[in-house]
């Protein structure tokens, strides 16, 4: 994947970065990770313990902006179910910082090295993309309409149970 190219496309879409906000995450990132998520630098991170999570989330989901309230909600839910969540998130960020791991290669690298951090990206992705934290009997839904799998396609589809539109509005070509 041409990450640099995608990153620059994304970077072009964000407003000029406010230097005071940039400092919130800047200390956590190397030039490499900052290049993955230039937009995330522009986001305020209201709590110190959320900064690494915000950075990792931005890297994993590849989005230009993360909703601040949802960030808090997902972090709290994940931290409540994962022992040492904050430390693991920091360790994962450090790993990516130091080894310049492409997000597309990240899971393969962690699995291949039998890293204790291997389950972490999927847990965080599940929270953001599906709105689901935990698994099996402990699975919990913390978002639905605002989960990324709904948000990413919102121009074409409604989340199931929400009306698409008036009768027959689905007959035309999606645009």
């Amino acid at each position, binding site marked *: 994947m041409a990450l640099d190219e995608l990153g620059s496309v994304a970077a072009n879409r964000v407003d000029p970065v406010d230097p005071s906000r940039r400092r919130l995450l800047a200390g956590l990132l190397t030039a490499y990770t900052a290049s993955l998520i230039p937009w995330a630098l522009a986001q305020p991170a209201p709590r110190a313990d959320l900064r690494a999570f915000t950075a990792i989330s931005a890297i*994993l989901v*590849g989005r230009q902006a993360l909703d601040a309230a949802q960030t808090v909600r997902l972090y709290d839910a994940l931290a409540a179910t994962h022992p040492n969540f904050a430390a693991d998130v920091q360790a994962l960020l450090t790993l990516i910082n130091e080894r310049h791991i492409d997000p597309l290669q990240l*899971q393969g690298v962690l699995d291949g090295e039998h890293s204790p951090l291997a389950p972490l990206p999927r847990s965080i*992705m599940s929270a953001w993309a599906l709105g689901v934290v935990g698994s099996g009997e402990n*699975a919990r839904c913390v978002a639905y309409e605002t989960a990324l*799998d709904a948000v990413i396609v919102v121009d074409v589809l409604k989340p*199931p*149970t929400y009306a698409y539109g008036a009768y027959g509005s689905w007959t035309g*070509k999606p645009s």
Partner: protein
Amino acid sequence: MSAELSADIVVIGAGIVGALAAQRLARQGASVLILEAGPRLERARVVAAFRNSPFKGNWMAPYPPSPWAPHPIYVPQDNGYLKQAGPYPYPAEYIRAVGGTTWHWAAQAWRLVPNDVRIKSLYGVGVDWPLTYEELDPWYQEAEDILGVAGADNTGSPRQHPFPMAPVAEPWAMRRVRERLAPTYAVVANTVARNSRSYDGRPACVGNNSCQPICPVNAQYLGINAVEAAEAAGAKVVPNAVVYRIEHGAKGRIAAVHYYAPDKSEHRVTGKQFILAANGIESPKLLLLSASDKYPNGLANSSGMVGRHLMDHPSTSLTFYADEELWLGRGPQSPSSINTLRDGTFRSQHAAYRLDFTNISQVLNVTNDLIKEGVYGTEFEKQLRWRAARQINVKNVLEVLPNPDNRITLSSEKDAMGIPKPEAHYSIDDYTRRAAEVSKADFARIAKLMGGTGLRYSADGQFANNQHITGTMSMGNDPASSVVDAFGRTHDHENLFVCSTGVMPTAATMNSTLTGVALALRTAGHILPAKNTHAGTMHSGHEASLA
């Protein structure tokens, strides 16, 4: 024991089939009591339960079982209610609640094709039904008029009168499938109990794309609509009444049924006529549970056939990416299928089948796949949109022949009320497996016509189940080989009738609900010939011939 309840007609089971039989009888002036093991549900709460569920792909999740009336649950793990004796698993799903399993059906309301009821005579397989398609036609019509069925005339099932409404507007994705598969395959609109216009106080579909597990807007006919209609006609529903025994008198007539309330208090209900309508698994379970000195093998079971001939519709499938954007998920879930393989001389060699296209949003499955594959970063969003726009699925719906070894029995395990759990003995024979193999060529042809890439066939020998429980109380003319007669009356007990898809002697290739409802209306018409018809019936000339 509390004071006894009593009614002219006692119905066990408040699903769509039992409730519509009850409604018809109540309208004739009979006092009708419906006993339902499960609780009442509220649509809005079901919708909320789905939205809050961490298991959006599991349509049973919004319907947790009650402790006193458990039903099978498999996600996040098997609750062990429906025991599996093998050799092939039969993970049936159903809902024990007022309204029954059609709370979360796809509303596919198909008729059989005429030859489905004569496959023994025509093809030398299975059994013939004790009635003809022509005899069923007016009862299908009555059922279609009540349910508000939308359909077209090109599906292979002839009819005397028009559908109550035109087919539901075709989603863009299905239009493209139809256009690109023509003329190799004729893709037609499914026959569905889903409104293409306002009908009987319910609105037209607005494309919520959650027909399963719940239609939020009441555009799709559900069992709860049938229950409410029965109540409006004067029937009384007792929820949370877990019937555990049917009591007979000295001459074999049914005298009463006994139920537990959730606190396990015991109640006895007497009546003149009894209708067992608790689905194709719970009904035979109850007949077997009601064994007595006079009937040591259970009630209605002098043939030994109660619980046997269990059938359903197994499916194999192909998932792939089309070469254009289709965006499944706009409009209702189950719009279109290919019906040309429902009948033919090949049925002497292999099962008939229908080919069914889903219009269920692919976003959830695609997202799960991407997370499983570890696709992160900006590629995640790109891939999600690309796949969700192009992913499509086609499955077969395969006929299963009646086999006495496929059956429901009583497990040695008991539920929380101390009632034996049902146990499934099931296998899928070569007749059905051969059809699955044949249909793979159809899958491949369809994928090619759609410019398909990334073809993913379901694993060889693995079948998904469709929850069309049939056969376990089969109808027939011979009391030695069937449980009920052509009118649903048990051969052994003159005042005990069965209304259920379980009376169907063969499964054919179609979702079984409409046939179950039509047969139940016919049974109700036999118990009490109609004086008036329901409000929605427009074609009611048939009753006179049955009076």
